């Protein structure tokens, strides 16, 4: 038994299908308890399946062991620092899981008659009100399932808005720092993306913006912006930007992924945005689940409201003096229609509403304050060490909730790519920051600590980066071969794409 191999590394991956043994099972069912007929008499045999799908045959104890052991091959927020830029990996209070699991929420059928789902509808209405207040835009639809879904919704709303005014616009402007979902959503919504340059302060390059607008103002449907942007910097020209877009007749879309920086401090609506999406799984603490679920509610201005998706949760004051009641409004003649089934990711709404109730208005503002403080502290700690030279901050000014470093000097001087640094961080027990985004920054490293981290965690992270850079000065190979102690070491991603094996072969 080699001692250089960790216990986890020694345990080679084996899928649940490989643990299957004919005849084993976990589930048992009572017999139907009704007079039975041969299946062929119920359904024509040409529509029936010959062989059952080859699902694993395995008993409960081994299922539990399989997934428990697998789970330990994940790094998770509940066991360590996870400064994944742009993802707002804040702590997920367990209370939110508890209230989401209440039978009145978890076992409520989405088609329940609204008169018998008043609690759920009121909760959704209260969440709409809260998000409207936080965003400074009064009308909210909770339907979008995530941020990118919200973006698509926003662009379809833009299209509907223009169409309603008899206009057909074709272009959507977005800075070169924008997140990948922005341009992807633009195309899906049938628009053409026009990239806008970034200025030396990390904001929108105003001359380029003017130029892009002036090319054909009547073609400008929308400008999509993240503010603070993906560099973690607040664009001071936002008022002027809004004026220019509105003058051209376009709408202004706010990508709310970075809302965690400004809650209670500045509101997209007040900045002049018409449409905002909110990633509830970021600023509002829905656990990230290994890649979802989340939700991407949108808040919009009065002029956009008529086009909001169907159905919409509405509150009705009672005529007979009783309390208000809540309903689903399906009659929205100008609505863009549905974006998904039923009412949205309700379970996510419960968690985020519980989060808002827990923190309250001041608590949210405080959260943003601490998030910004933590980011600037970590930025300063790093700048004070080797990172100051090797990993300089891309735009040197106070950041908001996150900041972006450039590994360019590190690569040139030490031959260490940002990826190497990231992989080496794994050996130190940290989740690396987001890497190679935004594209604008060479060898980018995007760091977002969030407000729920302690100073000790930030210091430990800064120390690890320092140690890795020091180590690399004497021997860069160490980082280039990293990681060493993870369940598996560097994986061949190219192979996985060249000759993709995307399912288990079964005989």
């Amino acid at each position, binding site marked *: 038994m080699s001692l250089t191999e960790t216990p986890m*590394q020694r345990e*080679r*991956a084996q*899928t649940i299908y490989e643990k299957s043994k004919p005849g*084993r*099972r*976990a*589930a*048992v069912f009572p017999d139907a308890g009704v*007079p039975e007929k041969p299946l062929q008499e119920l*359904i024509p045999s*040409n529509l029936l399946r010959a062989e059952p*799908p080859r*699902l694993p045959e395995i008993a409960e104890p081994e299922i*539990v062991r399989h*997934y428990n052991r697998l789970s*330990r091959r*994940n790094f998770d927020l509940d066991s360590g620092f996870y400064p994944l830029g742009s993802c707002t990996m804040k702590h997920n209070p367990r209370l939110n899981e508890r209230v989401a699991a209440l039978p*009145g929420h*978890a*076992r*409520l*059928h989405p088609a*329940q*008659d609204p008169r*018998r789902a008043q*609690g759920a509808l009121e*909760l959704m209405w209260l969440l709409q009100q809260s998000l409207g207040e936080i965003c400074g835009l009064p009308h909210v639809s909770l339907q979008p399932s*995530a941020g*990118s*879904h919200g973006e698509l919704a926003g662009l379809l709303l833009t299209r509907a808005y223009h169409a309603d005014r008899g206009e057909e616009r074709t272009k959507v402007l977005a800075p070169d720092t924008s997140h*990948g*979902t922005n*341009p992807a959503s633009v195309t*899906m919504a*049938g628009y053409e*993306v026009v990239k806008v340059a970034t200025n030396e302060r990390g904001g929108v390059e105003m001359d380029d913006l003017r130029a892009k607008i002036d090319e054909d103002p009547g073609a400008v449907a929308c400008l999509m912006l993240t503010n603070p942007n993906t560099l973690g*910097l607040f664009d001071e020209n*936002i008022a002027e930007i809004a004026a220019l877009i509105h003058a051209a007749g376009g709408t202004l879309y706010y990508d709310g992924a970075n809302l965690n920086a*400004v809650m*209670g*401090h500045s509101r997209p609506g007040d900045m002049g945005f018409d449409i905002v999406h909110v*990633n509830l799984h970021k600023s509002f603490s829905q656990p990230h*689940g290994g890649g979802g*679920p989340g939700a991407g509610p949108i808040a919009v201005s009065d002029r956009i409201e008529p086009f909001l998706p169907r159905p919409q949760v509405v509150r009705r004051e009672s005529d007979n003096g009783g309390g208000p009641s809540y309903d689903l409004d399906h009659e929205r003649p100008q609505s863009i229609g549905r974006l998904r*089934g039923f009412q949205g990711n*309700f*379970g996510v709404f419960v968690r985020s509403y519980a989060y808002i109730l827990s923190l*309250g208005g001041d608590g949210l503002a405080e959260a943003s304050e601490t998030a910004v403080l933590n980011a*600037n502290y970590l930025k*300063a700690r790093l700048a004070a060490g080797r990172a100051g030279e090797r990993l300089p901050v891309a735009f040197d000014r*106070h950041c908001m909730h996150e900041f972006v470093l450039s590994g360019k000097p590190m690569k040139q001087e030490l031959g260490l790519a940002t990826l190497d640094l990231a992989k080496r961080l*794994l050996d130190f027990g940290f989740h690396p920051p987001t890497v190679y985004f935004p594209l604008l920054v060479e060898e980018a490293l995007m760091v977002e600590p969030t407000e729920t981290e302690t100073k000790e965690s930030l210091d430990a992270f800064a120390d690890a980066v320092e140690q890795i850079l020091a180590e690399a000065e004497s021997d860069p190979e160490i980082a280039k071969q990293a990681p060493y102690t*993870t369940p*598996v070491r*560097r994986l*061949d*991603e190219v192979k996985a794409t060249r000759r993709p094996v*995307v*399912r288990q072969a079964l005989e």
Partner: protein
Amino acid sequence: MLGAIGVDTTDELFEQIPQPLRLDRPLALPDGLSEAEVFERLAGLAGRNADAEQQVCFVGAGMYDHYVPAIVDAITSRSEFLTPYTPYQPEISQGGLQVMFEFQTAMSELTGLPVSNAGLYEGPSSVASAGYLAMGATKRRRFVVSRGLHPHSRETLATYSVGYGAEVVEVGLEGGMTDAGALAEAVDGETAAVFLQSPNFLGAVEDVEALGAAAKEHGALLVVACDPMTLGILKPPGECGADIALGEGQPLGNRLDFGGPSFGFFCATQEQIRRMPGRIAGETEDVDGRRGFVLALQTREQHIRREKATNNICTAQALNALAAMVHLAWLGRHGFRELGELLAQRTAYARERLAGVEGVELLHEAPVAREFAVRLHAPVAAVLDRCAERGIAAGYPLGREYPEYGDGLLVAITERRSREQIDELADTLGAAIAAERGDLLAYEANKSSQEGVA
């Protein structure tokens, strides 16, 4: 910490926000509450919903009150699965990545198609994503859609189509099933895809193979929406010529949650692998030759491809897919089939039982697997109210989405619905209808004579 930053107050850090744009008042939200208070508040709201624990639930329409085994909660609530994000760093995400790989294998087995992604948002938006894929694959802009496709799917497809610029043509139903003739006529050389659902929204098991011929003939993709819980007994779409099989994943290990979060599954032929939406885990090796898994084919995705991405999805529903995988492992190869059979038998019984109730007739005679439609000879809304008062959610009223079936009710069966509950449904429904028609006596007389049927 301020010292290290070189500021005196945190407020200085916010000065980059122009003064006029800074909120000069606290948010108009209530003060924060203690954990116990938040719990009481939300328990209070939850208490005002009639959930499937308080009511006997025969409502389906795409989401079903199945029993979710306890191990699903036990495993999905583990921090290691609950709190990480998308596995961008595979070396420390093997747990999540292997689950995706196992899930893809399971969905591929269920649908009979070789390629599965790791899951999308939910059912209807997956249908819309299939449309986007079909346009890319065929360079055509026309969809032919069966009216048997879930209304939410049809609406969502329509919403998206306005965006990516496609035309949607709908084909009606005949005797509860897609009108084969009309479909054949509707499909042409401009058709990018044909959308079917089986069992369709009215519960009828469609002959996908036969209906799909039209698509094949004109080189359109055949997209089939299906209910995973029926795939233990129904011929998988892949064996019926489907290019894409997708659907709402909720019945697999996910709670009702008033509609979400759940997940959409999305499977396709090898041919479409590079046009797939969503994450896909692939098998590979590490530098020492250890087996491992990574996000494969990322070149399809928005974070690499940006405006040329095959889809805009980023955060999906990984945890819900895990729940499905655990549920499927628990059901196992044979349990999964047995469950499908159990549903079919009880559904057949319930259908016959209800057909025997005065004032109830079948909406169609087509074969069904787990859900069926009836007509009521009394105002549906009023009848449902009466049933609700007796603790029964009797079904899904078809009126809003199918004006032509204003008297229609869709009734769903899960393994949680016992024979006794089905009998209770029949009696309660009968009584409610009779009461609505003001002849309770006639009903009583008639009921006793029905006893034989049960």
